[in-house]
Every structure is written in structure tokens, then in C-alpha cells.
């Protein structure tokens, strides 16, 4: 009962959203290793660790579940919300009372989703199920680094990646603090700190994810 109510659905969205936020920290930290100028040895070693560690392997399923639940719930919530206003206003002055990001979470989520599908196909499935084209590096680890470098030599992919990261950035700009309020966590003393940390997190994570493809594209021009 609780989880099918309008509030309950938002608890689920907020919890999965916060979980995905924590995942992004791990993901970005790993990706940044590709910038270390050692021919990808550290990056590939980290990838190898992520591929073989049991805890990480289990977390991979949890992560998939987190994404799927967040996405399914977002579709349900968005459809219910749209149905609640069958006839639209002739004049819409939404910008007078709310931020753009907060009004476009569905569109921003869709951008992330499209990116996610392409991204998984190119990196995740390549690594998991790809024919061994990648080869091994000097330490004997699968050379995903090579895939990163080659992918970001392509302008369309690099551009798509960067656009998607802006989508993610705006999603988080609203989503971070929003998830706390959905869970009922609002307090005159702590909320300003949560909002501040949310914006700081968003800027760091968005910039971090953009720097990597941008760097690899620019050095290969």
C-alpha cells in the first residue's frame, strides 16, 4: 500500500536516486584513473579489480536493480502527473515560480536513459561479451583503456557524451536536495548544508565526467 501511494513512489525514487548518486562517485573515481599517463595500466588494473571482486559483482546487480526501479518508477510517476492535468494552460508562467531543472526531470532523465543504453553497449557489453578485440595491456589486464582512448577520438560520441553529462548535471542540480525532502528530511539547520553539498557534488561530478572525454578528444585532434 505504502509503495503504491504518491508519497511512497517518491520515497522509492529518492532512495534509488541517492543510491545512484553514491554510485556515480565510484564510477567517476575509476574513470579519472584513465587520465593517469601510464598507458592505462592503473585504469586497466582498476577495471580488472571491479570485474573480479565478489562484492563489486554483487553490487553490479544491485546497481542494475537501482536503475531499473528508478526508471520504472519515474515513468509511472510522470504518467500519473501528466494525467492529473488533462487540459493545459494557454499561458504557462512556470519560470516565475520554479526552476527549469525541477520542471524537466522527466526529459533530463530520458537524456540520461538514452545515453545509458549507448554507453552500456559501447563499454560494459564490450568488456563483458565483446570478442577479445580489446587485447591485454603490459600487466596482462584487459585493455579497456584502449577502448576509452579510441572512442573519444570520435567527435559524435564525445559530443553525445558531453551533452548527456549536462543532462545528468541538471537532473542532479534539482534531484540531490529534492530526494531529501521526498524522504521528509528538511530542517532549518541541516537543509542549507544539504543544498550546498548537492550543488558542490553536482558541479564536481558533472565537470569530472566532462573533463575525461574532452581531454581525450583534444589530445587526439
Amino acid at each position, binding site marked *: *500500500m*505504502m509503495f503504491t*501511494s*504518491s*508519497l*511512497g*513512489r*517518491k*520515497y522509492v525514487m529518492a532512495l534509488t536516486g541517492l543510491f545512484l548518486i553514491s554510485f556515480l562517485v565510484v564510477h567517476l573515481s575509476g574513470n579519472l584513473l584513465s587520465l593517469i599517463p601510464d598507458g592505462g595500466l592503473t585504469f586497466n588494473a582498476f577495471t580488472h579489480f571491479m570485474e573480479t571482486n565478489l562484492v563489486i559483482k554483487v553490487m553490479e546487480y544491485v546497481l542494475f536493480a537501482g536503475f531499473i526501479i528508478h526508471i520504472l518508477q519515474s515513468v509511472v*510517476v510522470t504518467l*500519473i*502527473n*501528466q*494525467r*492529473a*492535468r*488533462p*487540459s*493545459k*494552460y*494557454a*499561458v*504557462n*508562467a*512556470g519560470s*516565475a*515560480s*520554479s*526552476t527549469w531543472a*525541477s*520542471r524537466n*526531470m522527466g526529459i533530463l532523465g530520458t537524456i540520461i536513459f538514452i545515453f545509458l543504453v549507448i554507453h552500456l553497449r559501447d563499454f560494459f557489453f564490450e568488456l563483458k561479451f565483446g570478442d577479445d578485440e580489446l587485447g591485454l595491456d603490459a600487466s596482462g589486464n584487459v585493455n579497456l583503456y584502449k577502448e576509452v582512448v579510441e572512442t573519444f577520438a570520435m567527435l559524435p560520441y564525445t559530443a553525445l557524451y558531453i551533452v548527456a553529462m549536462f543532462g545528468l548535471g541538471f537532473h542532479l542540480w*534539482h534531484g540531490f*536536495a*529534492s530526494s531529501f*525532502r*521526498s*524522504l*521528509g*528530511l*528538511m530542517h532549518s539547520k541541516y537543509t542549507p548544508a544539504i543544498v550546498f553539498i548537492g550543488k558542490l557534488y553536482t558541479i564536481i561530478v558533472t565537470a569530472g565526467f566532462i573533463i575525461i572525454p574532452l581531454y581525450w578528444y583534444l589530445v587526439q585532434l
Partner: protein
Amino acid sequence: MNLTLKVWRQKNSSAKGTFETYQLDNVDVHASFLEMFDVLNEKLINEGKEPVAFDHDCREGICGTCSMVINGRAHGPLQNTTTCQLHMRHFKDGDTIVVEPWRSKAFPVLKDLVVDRGAFDRIIAAGGFVSVNTGQAPDANTIPVKKEKAELAFDAAACIGCGACVAACKNSSAMLFVSAKVSHLALLPQGNAERYSRVLNMVAQMDKEGFGSCTNTNACEAECPKGISVTNIARLNREYLAASLAAQKK
């Protein structure tokens, strides 16, 4: 001042509505928005046309009936102001003003700008009250109430049930209204006995009426004529979570 008005006209709840354009000249800048509509209606009646139906009662900013979306803003452009307290001096000579009803599945249009806000009444009937036992009226100060809590409860109680929060929300969510009513009673000892059943029943009714959910855009707070704070929405989320977790198996 001379104005062009584009007003939503709709015969009844099943009819398809359209905008009608009216030219209104020599509008007094000190007239309220509703008085401006009175003048328009007088003109329409003199011309043998059907006057525009709109809700109003107190014209003092306390009853909450004067629902109009003016140029895309619930109750018009001013903060903390109902339509009846909005004056024409906040518009310019030559302005075109678009006036629409609240648009929400849960608030069906009855006629022109009049909507049925019965959904709010049914939410209140589901739990927005304190059951009073018979007997003598108790002394006002027999139950101590912490000053801070009394203040918060009073702020929440200022909600006049106008529905501007629903009208302004992109999801037609009634969270600000429901949270104000839940907060008002949850903060006071008198409301404590029914605290959990109240929030569960009111939220269930809110969902049943077809309101959307909360994306935390804060549009409701910005458009609320009574300055109801979104901190009440956080409290509603908290109360509902606690009540759901504590509820016994049926």
C-alpha cells in the same frame, strides 16, 4: 486604462471551452481584479450576452474562492495575494490579460472560471479534523502547547483551501494543501490521538481524487496566497512514512 481580456468561456463541465476576447476601456486603476470583472459582466449583460461566471465570496482575501489563473499565474502576478486583493494598478494600459480557470483533473470546470473544489472537502472529510467528544468545552489553556509548535501550527492553519497550489503545480499536486492541514493538527496535542490514521486516510483520498505527486519544484509555495511553506510538505512526507511503518497489519 484600456485592456484586452482573453477569458476562458465554457458552458458546462462537459462542453469544450474556448477563449473569448473582450475589449474593456476606462478601467479604474484602483479597481480590484474582481471589480474589473464586475464591470466587464455589466457590459456583457447590457449587450445581451452571458456574463462570465467566476467564484468569489469574501473579497477580503480569506475565503479562498476567487480562483483565476491570470497570465499563467494562479491569483495573478503578486506574491501572497488572492485575486480579490489584486488591483489593476499592477497592470499597464494596453495590456492583454489572459484569464483561465484552475486546470486540474481533480477540479473539473463547472462553468467559465468556476471549478469544483469538492475534492478538497473530501480530503478534509477523510481525516482533516479532530474528533470532539461531547461534554463541556475545555478551558483554553488546560493543555500546554509549546510556543514554537503553536506558531508552526498557526502558520499551517492559515491555508484557506483555495487550490492555487494545485493550479500552479505542473503535476496538479495537492501536497501543499494536504501538508498544511496535516501539519496544523499533527503539531498540536489535540490532534495527536488521530495523528497516524489522519495522514494515511488523507493521503489515500488525495491520490483517489487524481492529484499528481510532488516533484519539489516549489511552485506551490511561490503561488500560495497565504505563504504556506514547503517545510510542511517535508513534514507530510515524514508523518506518512512514520504512519505507514507503524501501521498494524490489516
